[in-house]
């Protein structure tokens, strides 16, 4: 069903969020353990783990989109089954416009802040903020890849690992 490009993208995206979350957990835990054992803590852990969380949010949002895992109200589509395809088209176009705008705003913001550095690690803040344009670019790609099944049937990616409702909180 899925093209090779799509399968590779989903796989890379999945491993990206897995590694980020694993890294966050490992470094924050190491810091707590260190604080209890030696009363010291690694200064950069708090900063780096916060930035990883930002990247996780933006890199994960596109994949969540694929699974239909973003919380929303589907009542209108359910109430008007004959117009549902048009409603989905409207949602699709609005999302595309919004994602493109956010990509543009995010890219400008990352460039504008590139000269500043983070307090502890002294890396460019723009490198952290790059999460936003890259994340929204990824959301655009995922949105385009899911277009056909979504627009025609309102279908999302199905997977044994998630069903859409279990991804919501």
């Amino acid at each position, binding site marked *: 069903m899925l093209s090779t490009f799509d399968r590779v993208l989903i796989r890379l995206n999945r491993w990206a*969020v897995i590694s980020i*979350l694993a890294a966050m957990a490992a470094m924050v835990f190491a810091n707590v353990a260190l604080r209890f054992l030696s009363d010291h803590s690694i200064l950069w852990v708090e900063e780096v783990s916060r930035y990883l969380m930002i990247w996780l949010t933006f890199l*994960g949002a596109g994949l969540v989109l694929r699974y239909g895992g973003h919380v929303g109200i589907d*009542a209108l*589509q*359910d109430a008007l089954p004959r117009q549902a395809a048009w*409603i989905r088209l409207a949602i699709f176009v*609005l999302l595309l416009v919004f994602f493109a705008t956010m990509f543009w705003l*995010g890219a400008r913001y990352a460039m504008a802040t590139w000269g500043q550095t983070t307090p502890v690690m002294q890396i460019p803040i723009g490198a952290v903020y790059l999460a936003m344009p890259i994340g929204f670019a990824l959301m655009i790609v995922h949105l385009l890849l899911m277009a056909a099944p979504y627009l025609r049937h309102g279908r999302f990616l199905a997977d044994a690992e998630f069903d859409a409702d279990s991804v919501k*909180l």
Partner: protein
Amino acid sequence: MIAALFIACIVLLALGVPVAFALGGGTLVAILVHGSLPLVALPKYLFSGIDVFALMAVPFFILTAELMTGGALSAVLLRFASQFVGRFRGGLGHTNILAITFFSGISGSALADAAGPGAIMIRMMKSDGYRAEYAAALTAAVSILGPIIPPSISMIIYALAYPEVNLVGLMIAGVVPGALIAVAMAAINHVISVRRNYRGVAETLLLADYLRNTWRALPALVLPVLILGGIASGAFTPTEASVVAVFYALAAGRWIYGSLEWRMLPGILSRSALMTASVLIIVAMSAAFAWVLTISRVPQDLTAWIVGMNLSPLAFLFAVNVLLLVFGIFIEPLPGVVVLVPILAPIAHALGISDLQFGIIVIVNLTMGMLTPPVGGLLFVTSVVARVPLTRLVAELWPFLWAQVAVLALLSLVPQISTLLPGVFGYR
């Protein structure tokens, strides 16, 4: 500008645009309509909304619950709960309630409760002669304890949306109301079990059985004690407690219970990561949304207006409860917290209502929204597990819902239910 914000958000939401992007899109429209506000504020607040170390407890508590959901652990908790309440009338129902209450001390979300021990209990109740729709309704109703008994994802987001409230105090404040809801659910289960003659579990337990069941359950029961005790005593911040819980759950699942295998980790991590992303993208967008509200002075003006009406605190709480119940029919708890709390919590504070009591009322009320269709997330999960249509499940749900409304009224009338325990630890 504020009209543009609300109209755009409501149109986008009603159309079916995901909440995160409806909030972001509405904010974008509001900035464009205003004309002289800088567009750069949007990315700025998007980042500052999630660039918060305290938020890291969200992915870690999600991960803990996912690690603990494995079969062996739920079974151990169930056997432990069963030895206390199993022999009573409707024993399996009571076991369900008690086991989910324990699990709520590990998990921070209602769906984790329903999908973890809840799913196993539904199957057990079905095969023991309970109506499938009753088992599903009971499980859905009890699962709202997930975010009420600490830890709680909703409370972490609440404390972020209204920084005046202390997160640790709020978590401690959830304990007694959570227990009260569990007791209310057990009362309904008792009445219905008598009426339908749902019998208890007929097994004679020897002292040795009690000891063995308790011994087996001990490693799992350490976790709620570690989380709540660690946070309440001040040994851990909530974030530290959450990450310690992750590694404890990992070790317990792998080496004590043996139900967790290394090859399951990527799936658990990716599921947790995506849940985190879907939560935090809403938090990020709502930070920009809240910024537009604040510069338009909406919370301040609304507070002044309502305080000027000389409303009694109880009348205000009544109005808030009705508003939230209606809101909860359409909106999930999390968007409800990020949108409504920055507006409502300052008003409650100005009227002299305890921040902790108000926080508990809001969280209990909005979580109950997961039980009301069309966006009743808990109903979807339990109806799928029990294989019953939603309409028949809802028919069985009403007594539980009314009991919860009664608890909500009690929480509104008696602030001490929420404030007494945190007061012991010095939180006001």
